[in-house]
Protein backbone atom coordinates (compact mmCIF):
# COMPACT_ATOMS: atom_id res chain seq x y z
CA UNK A 1 0.00 0.00 0.00
CA UNK A 2 2.73 2.45 1.05
CA UNK A 3 4.82 1.45 -1.93
CA UNK A 4 1.85 1.97 -4.24
CA UNK A 5 1.14 5.50 -2.98
CA UNK A 6 4.82 6.36 -3.21
CA UNK A 7 4.94 5.27 -6.86
CA UNK A 8 1.76 7.20 -7.53
CA UNK A 9 3.47 10.36 -6.25
CA UNK A 10 6.66 9.66 -8.20
CA UNK A 11 4.69 8.87 -11.34
CA UNK A 12 2.67 12.05 -11.06
CA UNK A 13 5.86 14.12 -10.82
CA UNK A 14 7.47 12.38 -13.75
CA UNK A 15 4.23 12.58 -15.71
CA UNK A 16 3.99 16.34 -15.17
CA UNK A 17 7.44 16.73 -16.71
CA UNK A 18 6.65 14.49 -19.70
CA UNK A 19 3.35 16.26 -20.15
CA UNK A 20 4.98 19.68 -20.32
CA UNK A 21 7.39 18.48 -23.00
CA UNK A 22 4.63 16.60 -24.84
CA UNK A 23 2.62 19.82 -25.19
CA UNK A 24 5.38 21.23 -27.37
CA UNK A 25 5.28 18.22 -29.70
CA UNK A 26 1.53 18.26 -29.99
CA UNK A 27 1.21 22.03 -30.57
CA UNK A 28 3.78 22.04 -33.33
CA UNK A 29 2.21 18.97 -34.91
CA UNK A 30 -1.18 20.64 -34.71
CA UNK A 31 -0.11 23.77 -36.50
CA UNK A 32 2.31 22.54 -39.19
CA UNK A 33 1.81 18.79 -39.18
CA UNK A 34 5.41 17.84 -38.44
CA UNK A 35 7.12 16.13 -35.50
CA UNK A 36 9.75 18.47 -34.14
CA UNK A 37 12.38 15.90 -33.22
CA UNK A 38 14.66 18.65 -31.95
CA UNK A 39 12.16 19.47 -29.20
CA UNK A 40 13.72 17.05 -26.69
CA UNK A 41 17.07 18.73 -27.25
CA UNK A 42 15.59 22.18 -26.74
CA UNK A 43 14.43 20.80 -23.40
CA UNK A 44 17.98 19.56 -22.72
CA UNK A 45 19.41 22.98 -23.57
CA UNK A 46 17.03 24.54 -21.04
CA UNK A 47 18.18 22.10 -18.34
CA UNK A 48 21.84 22.94 -19.04
CA UNK A 49 20.97 26.63 -18.88
CA UNK A 50 19.26 26.01 -15.54
CA UNK A 51 22.49 24.51 -14.20
CA UNK A 52 24.48 27.49 -15.48
CA UNK A 53 22.17 30.08 -13.97
CA UNK A 54 21.71 28.32 -10.64
CA UNK A 55 25.50 28.17 -10.32
CA UNK A 56 25.89 31.77 -11.48
CA UNK A 57 23.21 33.19 -9.21
CA UNK A 58 24.55 31.26 -6.23
CA UNK A 59 27.98 32.72 -6.96
CA UNK A 60 26.40 36.16 -7.05
CA UNK A 61 25.20 35.56 -3.52
CA UNK A 62 21.48 34.97 -4.00
CA UNK A 63 20.52 32.66 -1.17
CA UNK A 64 16.73 32.95 -1.13
CA UNK A 65 15.42 29.79 -2.78
CA UNK A 66 12.10 31.21 -4.05
CA UNK A 67 13.87 34.22 -5.58
CA UNK A 68 16.45 31.94 -7.15
CA UNK A 69 13.76 29.70 -8.64
CA UNK A 70 11.77 32.60 -10.05
CA UNK A 71 14.86 34.23 -11.57
CA UNK A 72 16.11 30.98 -13.09
CA UNK A 73 12.66 30.18 -14.49
CA UNK A 74 12.24 33.61 -16.06
CA UNK A 75 15.72 33.69 -17.60
CA UNK A 76 15.63 30.10 -18.86
CA UNK A 77 12.11 30.44 -20.28
CA UNK A 78 13.14 33.59 -22.15
CA UNK A 79 16.33 32.11 -23.57
CA UNK A 80 14.75 28.76 -24.47
CA UNK A 81 11.96 30.56 -26.34
CA UNK A 82 14.65 32.19 -28.44
CA UNK A 83 15.99 28.70 -29.18
CA UNK A 84 12.51 27.55 -30.21
CA UNK A 85 12.12 30.54 -32.50
CA UNK A 86 15.57 30.06 -34.04
CA UNK A 87 15.07 26.33 -34.65
CA UNK A 88 11.84 27.02 -36.56
CA UNK A 89 13.31 29.93 -38.47
CA UNK A 90 16.49 28.21 -39.59
CA UNK A 91 15.59 24.52 -39.89
CA UNK A 92 11.86 24.38 -40.76
CA UNK A 93 10.56 27.57 -42.31
CA UNK A 94 12.80 27.38 -45.40
CA UNK A 95 11.32 23.90 -46.00
CA UNK A 96 7.68 24.93 -45.41
CA UNK A 97 6.52 24.19 -48.95
CA UNK A 98 8.79 21.24 -49.48
CA UNK A 99 7.96 17.53 -49.18
CA UNK A 100 6.71 16.18 -45.86
CA UNK A 101 9.94 14.29 -45.25
CA UNK A 102 12.31 17.25 -45.62
CA UNK A 103 11.52 19.08 -42.35
CA UNK A 104 11.59 15.73 -40.52
CA UNK A 105 15.16 15.10 -41.68
CA UNK A 106 16.02 18.68 -40.86
CA UNK A 107 14.60 18.16 -37.36
CA UNK A 108 16.83 15.14 -36.76
CA UNK A 109 19.78 17.18 -38.01
CA UNK A 110 18.88 20.00 -35.63
CA UNK A 111 18.66 17.49 -32.78
CA UNK A 112 22.15 16.15 -33.51
CA UNK A 113 23.45 19.70 -33.87
CA UNK A 114 22.08 20.84 -30.48
CA UNK A 115 23.47 17.77 -28.68
CA UNK A 116 26.90 18.25 -30.19
CA UNK A 117 26.87 21.98 -29.61
CA UNK A 118 26.23 21.44 -25.90
CA UNK A 119 28.72 18.60 -25.71
CA UNK A 120 31.47 20.70 -27.27
CA UNK A 121 30.77 23.95 -25.44
CA UNK A 122 29.77 22.52 -22.05
CA UNK A 123 31.65 19.22 -21.99
CA UNK A 124 30.25 15.73 -21.95
CA UNK A 125 30.39 15.21 -18.22
CA UNK A 126 27.33 15.11 -16.02
CA UNK A 127 26.64 18.52 -14.48
CA UNK A 128 25.55 18.65 -10.87
CA UNK A 129 23.76 21.48 -9.09
CA UNK A 130 23.45 21.94 -5.34
CA UNK A 131 20.12 20.83 -3.93
CA UNK A 132 17.89 23.87 -3.77
CA UNK A 133 14.91 22.34 -2.03
CA UNK A 134 16.04 19.58 0.29
CA UNK A 135 13.70 17.60 2.47
CA UNK A 136 10.31 16.04 2.20
CA UNK A 137 7.09 15.52 4.05
CA UNK A 138 6.62 12.13 5.67
CA UNK A 139 3.06 11.33 4.82
CA UNK A 140 2.53 8.05 6.68
CA UNK A 141 4.14 4.71 7.42
CA UNK A 142 2.51 1.42 6.51
CA UNK A 143 4.11 -2.00 7.05
CA UNK A 144 7.45 -0.38 7.68
CA UNK A 145 7.36 1.64 4.42
CA UNK A 146 7.34 5.40 4.88
CA UNK A 147 5.73 7.40 2.08
CA UNK A 148 7.62 10.60 1.30
CA UNK A 149 6.46 13.65 -0.58
CA UNK A 150 9.53 15.67 -1.52
CA UNK A 151 9.23 19.46 -1.59
CA UNK A 152 10.50 19.43 -5.16
CA UNK A 153 7.66 17.08 -6.10
CA UNK A 154 5.13 19.48 -4.61
CA UNK A 155 6.84 22.29 -6.50
CA UNK A 156 6.75 20.43 -9.82
CA UNK A 157 3.09 19.52 -9.53
CA UNK A 158 2.04 23.00 -8.38
CA UNK A 159 4.00 24.78 -11.11
CA UNK A 160 2.67 22.39 -13.73
CA UNK A 161 -0.93 22.84 -12.65
CA UNK A 162 -0.58 26.64 -12.56
CA UNK A 163 1.07 26.62 -15.97
CA UNK A 164 -1.64 24.43 -17.44
CA UNK A 165 -4.38 26.72 -16.17
CA UNK A 166 -2.64 29.74 -17.68
CA UNK A 167 -1.84 27.92 -20.89
CA UNK A 168 -5.40 26.64 -21.32
CA UNK A 169 -6.74 30.17 -20.80
CA UNK A 170 -4.28 31.47 -23.39
CA UNK A 171 -5.37 28.93 -26.01
CA UNK A 172 -9.12 28.99 -25.37
CA UNK A 173 -9.78 32.62 -24.40
CA UNK A 174 -7.33 35.00 -26.03
CA UNK A 175 -7.09 36.35 -29.54
CA UNK A 176 -3.68 34.72 -29.94
CA UNK A 177 -5.17 31.36 -28.90
CA UNK A 178 -7.92 31.71 -31.50
CA UNK A 179 -5.39 32.62 -34.18
CA UNK A 180 -3.31 29.62 -33.19
CA UNK A 181 -6.29 27.26 -33.41
CA UNK A 182 -7.40 28.85 -36.68
CA UNK A 183 -3.97 28.16 -38.18
CA UNK A 184 -4.35 24.53 -37.16
CA UNK A 185 -7.66 24.24 -38.96
CA UNK A 186 -7.06 26.23 -42.14
CA UNK A 187 -3.85 28.19 -42.65
CA UNK A 188 -4.87 29.78 -45.95
CA UNK A 189 -8.18 31.02 -44.58
CA UNK A 190 -6.42 32.38 -41.50
CA UNK A 191 -4.07 34.40 -43.71
CA UNK A 192 -7.10 35.64 -45.69
CA UNK A 193 -8.42 37.12 -42.45
CA UNK A 194 -5.29 39.23 -42.09
CA UNK A 195 -3.42 37.03 -39.66
CA UNK A 196 0.32 36.65 -40.14
CA UNK A 197 0.55 32.86 -40.22
CA UNK A 198 4.36 32.73 -40.10
CA UNK A 199 4.34 34.83 -36.97
CA UNK A 200 1.73 32.60 -35.34
CA UNK A 201 3.83 29.52 -36.15
CA UNK A 202 6.93 31.20 -34.68
CA UNK A 203 5.03 32.04 -31.49
CA UNK A 204 3.81 28.44 -31.26
CA UNK A 205 7.38 27.19 -31.36
CA UNK A 206 8.35 29.72 -28.70
CA UNK A 207 5.46 28.68 -26.49
CA UNK A 208 6.35 24.99 -26.85
CA UNK A 209 9.97 25.77 -25.99
CA UNK A 210 8.88 27.83 -22.97
CA UNK A 211 6.88 24.88 -21.60
CA UNK A 212 9.85 22.58 -22.19
CA UNK A 213 12.04 25.11 -20.36
CA UNK A 214 9.84 24.86 -17.28
CA UNK A 215 10.23 21.07 -17.46
CA UNK A 216 14.00 21.49 -17.87
CA UNK A 217 14.35 23.73 -14.83
CA UNK A 218 12.14 21.43 -12.74
CA UNK A 219 14.10 18.32 -13.69
CA UNK A 220 17.38 20.04 -12.88
CA UNK A 221 16.08 20.99 -9.44
CA UNK A 222 14.53 17.54 -8.92
CA UNK A 223 17.40 15.25 -9.95
CA UNK A 224 20.28 17.65 -9.41
CA UNK A 225 22.20 16.31 -12.42
CA UNK A 226 21.88 16.81 -16.17
CA UNK A 227 24.02 16.20 -19.24
CA UNK A 228 23.92 16.79 -22.99
CA UNK A 229 22.16 13.50 -23.77
CA UNK A 230 19.03 13.76 -21.58
CA UNK A 231 17.01 15.32 -24.41
CA UNK A 232 16.90 12.19 -26.50
CA UNK A 233 15.19 9.77 -24.12
CA UNK A 234 13.00 12.44 -22.50
CA UNK A 235 12.05 13.66 -25.98
CA UNK A 236 11.04 10.22 -27.21
CA UNK A 237 9.05 9.57 -24.04
CA UNK A 238 7.25 12.88 -24.31
CA UNK A 239 6.63 12.14 -27.98
CA UNK A 240 5.15 8.78 -26.95
CA UNK A 241 2.99 10.64 -24.44
CA UNK A 242 1.77 12.99 -27.18
CA UNK A 243 0.98 10.07 -29.51
CA UNK A 244 -0.74 8.13 -26.72
CA UNK A 245 -2.91 11.13 -25.83
CA UNK A 246 -3.66 11.80 -29.49
CA UNK A 247 -1.19 13.95 -31.37
CA UNK A 248 -2.60 17.46 -31.85
CA UNK A 249 -4.71 17.29 -28.69
CA UNK A 250 -3.53 19.49 -25.81
CA UNK A 251 -5.40 17.69 -23.00
CA UNK A 252 -4.25 14.46 -24.67
CA UNK A 253 -0.60 15.44 -24.33
CA UNK A 254 -1.01 16.06 -20.62
CA UNK A 255 -2.98 12.85 -20.09
CA UNK A 256 -0.44 10.87 -22.12
CA UNK A 257 2.39 12.37 -20.06
CA UNK A 258 0.70 11.33 -16.84
CA UNK A 259 0.11 7.79 -18.05
CA UNK A 260 3.69 7.38 -19.28
CA UNK A 261 5.02 8.79 -16.00
CA UNK A 262 2.88 6.37 -13.99
CA UNK A 263 3.80 3.36 -16.09
CA UNK A 264 7.47 4.17 -15.85
CA UNK A 265 7.30 4.66 -12.10
CA UNK A 266 5.31 1.48 -11.40
CA UNK A 267 7.33 -0.57 -13.85
CA UNK A 268 10.55 0.48 -12.11
CA UNK A 269 9.17 -0.36 -8.68
CA UNK A 270 7.41 -3.64 -9.34
CA UNK A 271 9.15 -5.11 -12.38
CA UNK A 272 12.58 -3.94 -13.43
CA UNK A 273 14.08 -0.46 -13.45
CA UNK A 274 16.48 -1.47 -16.25
CA UNK A 275 13.62 -2.09 -18.64
CA UNK A 276 11.47 0.95 -17.87
CA UNK A 277 12.29 2.54 -21.24
CA UNK A 278 11.16 -0.64 -22.97
CA UNK A 279 7.74 -0.21 -21.37
CA UNK A 280 7.36 3.24 -22.94
CA UNK A 281 8.40 2.09 -26.38
CA UNK A 282 6.13 -0.94 -26.28
CA UNK A 283 3.27 1.47 -25.61
CA UNK A 284 4.35 3.63 -28.55
CA UNK A 285 4.31 0.60 -30.83
CA UNK A 286 0.96 -0.66 -29.53
CA UNK A 287 -0.69 2.75 -29.89
CA UNK A 288 0.64 3.19 -33.41
CA UNK A 289 -0.62 -0.29 -34.32
CA UNK A 290 -4.04 -0.31 -32.73
CA UNK A 291 -5.10 3.27 -32.06
CA UNK A 292 -3.01 5.69 -34.11
CA UNK A 293 -5.33 8.59 -33.28
CA UNK A 294 -4.56 8.14 -29.56
CA UNK A 295 -6.86 8.43 -26.58
CA UNK A 296 -8.24 11.94 -27.16
CA UNK A 297 -7.17 12.56 -30.75
CA UNK A 298 -9.37 13.01 -33.76
CA UNK A 299 -9.08 10.37 -36.47
CA UNK A 300 -6.87 11.55 -39.30
CA UNK A 301 -8.96 13.02 -42.08
CA UNK A 302 -7.35 13.64 -45.42
CA UNK A 303 -7.52 17.38 -46.12
CA UNK A 304 -8.78 18.32 -49.57
Amino acid sequence: MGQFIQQLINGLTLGAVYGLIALGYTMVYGIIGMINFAHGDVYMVSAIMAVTFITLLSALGISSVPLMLVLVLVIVIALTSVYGWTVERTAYRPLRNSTRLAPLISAIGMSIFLQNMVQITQGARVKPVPTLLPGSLELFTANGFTVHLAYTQILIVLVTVALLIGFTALITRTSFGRQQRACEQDRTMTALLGINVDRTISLTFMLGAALAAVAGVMVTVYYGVVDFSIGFVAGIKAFTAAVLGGIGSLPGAMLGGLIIGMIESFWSAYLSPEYKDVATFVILILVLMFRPSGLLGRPEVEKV
Partner: protein
Amino acid sequence: MSMLTFAGVHAHYGAIHALRGVDIHVEEGEIVTLIGANGAGKSTLMMTLFGQPRASQGSISYQGRDITRMATHDISRQGIALVPEGRRIFPRMTVLENLQMGATFAKPEHFDGDIKRVFELFPVLEARQAQRAGTLSGGEQQMLAIGRALMGRPTLLLLDEPSLGLAPLYIKLIFRTIEALNKEGMTILLVEQNAHHALKVAHRGYVLQHGGIVLTGTGKELLASPEVRAAYLEGGAEISHA
Protein backbone atom coordinates in the same frame (compact mmCIF):
# COMPACT_ATOMS: atom_id res chain seq x y z
CA MET B 1 -9.26 55.83 -60.24
CA SER B 2 -10.82 52.45 -59.83
CA MET B 3 -11.03 50.80 -56.45
CA LEU B 4 -9.66 47.52 -57.78
CA THR B 5 -7.79 46.97 -61.03
CA PHE B 6 -6.42 43.82 -62.62
CA ALA B 7 -4.08 44.73 -65.49
CA GLY B 8 -3.01 41.88 -67.78
CA VAL B 9 -2.92 39.36 -64.94
CA HIS B 10 -1.63 35.85 -65.60
CA ALA B 11 -1.60 33.12 -62.96
CA HIS B 12 -0.62 29.47 -62.81
CA TYR B 13 -1.85 26.65 -60.62
CA GLY B 14 0.98 24.16 -60.89
CA ALA B 15 1.18 23.39 -64.58
CA ILE B 16 -2.23 24.91 -65.34
CA HIS B 17 -2.22 28.35 -66.90
CA ALA B 18 -5.37 29.46 -65.05
CA LEU B 19 -5.51 33.19 -65.85
CA ARG B 20 -4.40 34.45 -69.25
CA GLY B 21 -4.13 38.22 -69.20
CA VAL B 22 -7.20 39.30 -67.25
CA ASP B 23 -8.19 42.99 -67.23
CA ILE B 24 -10.99 43.96 -64.88
CA HIS B 25 -11.81 46.94 -62.73
CA VAL B 26 -14.24 47.50 -59.89
CA GLU B 27 -15.46 51.00 -58.98
CA GLU B 28 -16.38 52.12 -55.51
CA GLY B 29 -20.00 51.33 -54.63
CA GLU B 30 -20.52 48.80 -57.41
CA ILE B 31 -21.65 45.21 -57.45
CA VAL B 32 -19.57 43.54 -60.12
CA THR B 33 -20.12 39.92 -61.01
CA LEU B 34 -17.89 37.42 -62.66
CA ILE B 35 -19.64 34.57 -64.40
CA GLY B 36 -18.26 31.59 -66.21
CA ALA B 37 -18.31 27.82 -66.33
CA ASN B 38 -16.60 25.51 -63.88
CA GLY B 39 -12.83 25.75 -64.29
CA ALA B 40 -12.96 29.06 -66.17
CA GLY B 41 -10.67 30.62 -63.55
CA LYS B 42 -13.17 32.54 -61.40
CA SER B 43 -11.95 31.28 -58.05
CA THR B 44 -8.35 31.55 -59.16
CA LEU B 45 -8.95 35.19 -59.99
CA MET B 46 -10.19 35.86 -56.46
CA MET B 47 -7.34 33.97 -54.84
CA THR B 48 -4.77 35.67 -57.09
CA LEU B 49 -5.98 38.98 -55.69
CA PHE B 50 -4.69 37.66 -52.32
CA GLY B 51 -1.47 36.34 -53.79
CA GLN B 52 -2.50 32.66 -53.61
CA PRO B 53 -1.20 31.94 -56.24
CA ARG B 54 0.84 35.01 -57.10
CA ALA B 55 0.24 36.69 -60.45
CA SER B 56 3.03 35.51 -62.73
CA GLN B 57 2.55 38.53 -65.01
CA GLY B 58 0.58 41.76 -64.85
CA SER B 59 -0.37 43.82 -61.83
CA ILE B 60 -3.18 44.17 -59.30
CA SER B 61 -3.85 47.45 -57.56
CA TYR B 62 -6.27 48.39 -54.83
CA GLN B 63 -7.14 52.00 -54.02
CA GLY B 64 -4.11 53.15 -55.94
CA ARG B 65 -1.67 50.80 -54.21
CA ASP B 66 0.10 48.00 -56.03
CA ILE B 67 -0.74 44.85 -54.07
CA THR B 68 0.63 42.32 -56.57
CA ARG B 69 3.53 41.23 -54.36
CA MET B 70 2.09 42.06 -50.96
CA ALA B 71 1.83 39.30 -48.29
CA THR B 72 -1.61 37.67 -48.15
CA HIS B 73 -2.37 38.93 -44.64
CA ASP B 74 -1.35 42.48 -45.57
CA ILE B 75 -3.66 42.43 -48.59
CA SER B 76 -6.52 41.42 -46.33
CA ARG B 77 -5.66 44.24 -43.92
CA GLN B 78 -6.11 46.76 -46.74
CA GLY B 79 -9.82 46.25 -46.18
CA ILE B 80 -10.58 43.35 -48.51
CA ALA B 81 -12.55 40.37 -47.22
CA LEU B 82 -13.28 37.09 -48.96
CA VAL B 83 -16.17 34.71 -48.51
CA PRO B 84 -14.36 31.79 -50.11
CA GLU B 85 -15.55 28.92 -52.19
CA GLY B 86 -16.61 26.10 -49.87
CA ARG B 87 -17.07 28.65 -47.04
CA ARG B 88 -13.97 27.54 -45.12
CA ILE B 89 -15.36 28.34 -41.71
CA PHE B 90 -13.30 27.00 -38.79
CA PRO B 91 -15.29 23.85 -38.01
CA ARG B 92 -13.83 23.15 -34.56
CA MET B 93 -14.47 26.65 -33.29
CA THR B 94 -17.77 28.02 -32.09
CA VAL B 95 -19.87 30.36 -34.22
CA LEU B 96 -18.89 33.23 -31.93
CA GLU B 97 -15.18 32.40 -32.21
CA ASN B 98 -15.46 32.34 -35.99
CA LEU B 99 -16.94 35.82 -35.90
CA GLN B 100 -14.21 36.96 -33.49
CA MET B 101 -11.63 35.64 -35.95
CA GLY B 102 -13.11 37.88 -38.62
CA ALA B 103 -12.80 40.86 -36.29
CA THR B 104 -9.14 40.21 -35.40
CA PHE B 105 -7.97 43.43 -37.05
CA ALA B 106 -11.06 45.57 -36.58
CA LYS B 107 -11.08 48.10 -33.77
CA PRO B 108 -12.28 46.44 -30.53
CA GLU B 109 -14.77 49.26 -29.89
CA HIS B 110 -16.65 48.31 -33.09
CA PHE B 111 -17.09 44.70 -32.01
CA ASP B 112 -20.38 44.91 -30.13
CA GLY B 113 -22.09 46.98 -32.81
CA ASP B 114 -20.74 44.87 -35.66
CA ILE B 115 -21.76 41.56 -34.16
CA LYS B 116 -25.22 42.94 -33.45
CA ARG B 117 -25.56 43.87 -37.10
CA VAL B 118 -24.44 40.40 -38.23
CA PHE B 119 -27.01 38.86 -35.88
CA GLU B 120 -29.67 41.16 -37.35
CA LEU B 121 -28.79 40.01 -40.85
CA PHE B 122 -28.64 36.35 -39.80
CA PRO B 123 -30.61 35.76 -36.58
CA VAL B 124 -29.88 32.03 -36.70
CA LEU B 125 -26.22 32.76 -35.96
CA GLU B 126 -27.13 34.45 -32.70
CA ALA B 127 -29.17 31.45 -31.62
CA ARG B 128 -26.26 29.15 -32.43
CA GLN B 129 -23.34 31.30 -31.28
CA ALA B 130 -22.03 28.79 -28.74
CA GLN B 131 -22.31 25.87 -31.15
CA ARG B 132 -19.37 24.39 -33.04
CA ALA B 133 -19.40 25.82 -36.56
CA GLY B 134 -18.85 22.39 -38.09
CA THR B 135 -22.28 21.30 -36.88
CA LEU B 136 -24.13 24.04 -38.82
CA SER B 137 -26.05 23.30 -42.00
CA GLY B 138 -24.58 24.40 -45.32
CA GLY B 139 -26.75 27.50 -45.49
CA GLU B 140 -25.93 28.49 -41.93
CA GLN B 141 -22.23 28.00 -42.63
CA GLN B 142 -22.56 30.31 -45.63
CA MET B 143 -24.14 32.96 -43.41
CA LEU B 144 -21.34 32.49 -40.92
CA ALA B 145 -18.73 32.90 -43.64
CA ILE B 146 -20.40 36.15 -44.74
CA GLY B 147 -20.75 37.31 -41.14
CA ARG B 148 -17.10 36.56 -40.47
CA ALA B 149 -16.07 38.61 -43.51
CA LEU B 150 -18.27 41.53 -42.41
CA MET B 151 -16.76 41.56 -38.91
CA GLY B 152 -13.53 42.84 -40.45
CA ARG B 153 -15.39 45.95 -41.77
CA PRO B 154 -14.14 45.50 -45.34
CA THR B 155 -14.39 48.20 -47.97
CA LEU B 156 -14.40 45.52 -50.67
CA LEU B 157 -16.24 42.25 -50.18
CA LEU B 158 -15.51 39.28 -52.42
CA LEU B 159 -17.98 36.42 -52.54
CA ASP B 160 -17.09 33.17 -54.26
CA GLU B 161 -20.16 31.12 -55.21
CA PRO B 162 -22.19 32.04 -52.15
CA SER B 163 -25.28 30.27 -53.46
CA LEU B 164 -23.59 26.96 -54.31
CA GLY B 165 -25.45 23.98 -52.90
CA LEU B 166 -27.96 26.03 -50.96
CA ALA B 167 -31.72 25.65 -50.72
CA PRO B 168 -33.66 28.27 -52.73
CA LEU B 169 -34.78 30.00 -49.55
CA TYR B 170 -31.19 30.57 -48.47
CA ILE B 171 -30.15 31.69 -51.95
CA LYS B 172 -32.81 34.38 -51.82
CA LEU B 173 -31.63 35.51 -48.39
CA ILE B 174 -27.99 35.64 -49.48
CA PHE B 175 -28.75 37.74 -52.56
CA ARG B 176 -31.02 40.06 -50.55
CA THR B 177 -28.17 40.53 -48.09
CA ILE B 178 -25.71 41.31 -50.87
CA GLU B 179 -28.01 44.03 -52.19
CA ALA B 180 -28.59 45.43 -48.70
CA LEU B 181 -24.86 45.62 -47.97
CA ASN B 182 -24.27 47.36 -51.28
CA LYS B 183 -26.96 49.94 -50.50
CA GLU B 184 -25.03 50.73 -47.30
CA GLY B 185 -22.05 51.55 -49.49
CA MET B 186 -20.08 48.32 -49.63
CA THR B 187 -18.36 47.46 -52.89
CA ILE B 188 -18.91 43.86 -53.93
CA LEU B 189 -17.24 41.50 -56.36
CA LEU B 190 -19.35 38.41 -56.81
CA VAL B 191 -18.40 35.16 -58.50
CA GLU B 192 -21.34 33.00 -59.48
CA GLN B 193 -22.36 30.03 -61.51
CA ASN B 194 -25.91 31.07 -60.83
CA ALA B 195 -25.60 33.67 -63.61
CA HIS B 196 -29.23 34.67 -63.67
CA HIS B 197 -29.36 35.77 -60.03
CA ALA B 198 -25.92 37.34 -60.12
CA LEU B 199 -26.57 39.45 -63.22
CA LYS B 200 -29.86 40.65 -61.79
CA VAL B 201 -28.24 42.20 -58.73
CA ALA B 202 -24.99 43.33 -60.41
CA HIS B 203 -24.28 46.74 -61.91
CA ARG B 204 -21.73 45.28 -64.26
CA GLY B 205 -20.44 41.85 -65.13
CA TYR B 206 -17.60 40.02 -66.82
CA VAL B 207 -17.75 36.66 -68.52
CA LEU B 208 -14.66 34.56 -67.90
CA GLN B 209 -13.79 31.67 -70.16
CA HIS B 210 -10.58 29.60 -70.23
CA GLY B 211 -8.84 32.14 -68.01
CA GLY B 212 -9.69 35.21 -70.12
CA ILE B 213 -12.46 37.83 -70.19
CA VAL B 214 -14.59 37.25 -73.29
CA LEU B 215 -17.49 39.62 -72.66
CA THR B 216 -18.34 42.54 -70.44
CA GLY B 217 -21.26 44.87 -69.94
CA THR B 218 -23.88 46.01 -67.48
CA GLY B 219 -25.89 43.37 -65.69
CA LYS B 220 -28.89 44.08 -67.90
CA GLU B 221 -26.87 43.94 -71.11
CA LEU B 222 -25.33 40.62 -70.20
CA LEU B 223 -28.69 39.20 -69.15
CA ALA B 224 -30.08 40.17 -72.55
CA SER B 225 -27.03 39.07 -74.51
CA PRO B 226 -27.84 36.07 -76.69
CA GLU B 227 -24.37 34.58 -76.12
CA VAL B 228 -24.72 34.73 -72.35
CA ARG B 229 -28.22 33.33 -72.53
CA ALA B 230 -27.06 30.47 -74.67
CA ALA B 231 -23.96 29.66 -72.64
CA TYR B 232 -24.94 30.28 -69.04
CA LEU B 233 -28.66 30.71 -68.72
CA GLU B 234 -30.00 28.07 -71.05
CA GLY B 235 -26.86 25.92 -71.09
CA GLY B 236 -25.04 25.34 -74.30
CA ALA B 237 -22.28 26.54 -76.54
CA GLU B 238 -19.24 28.51 -75.45
CA ILE B 239 -18.83 32.09 -76.54
CA SER B 240 -16.49 32.41 -79.51
CA HIS B 241 -13.77 35.01 -78.99
CA ALA B 242 -14.77 38.35 -80.44
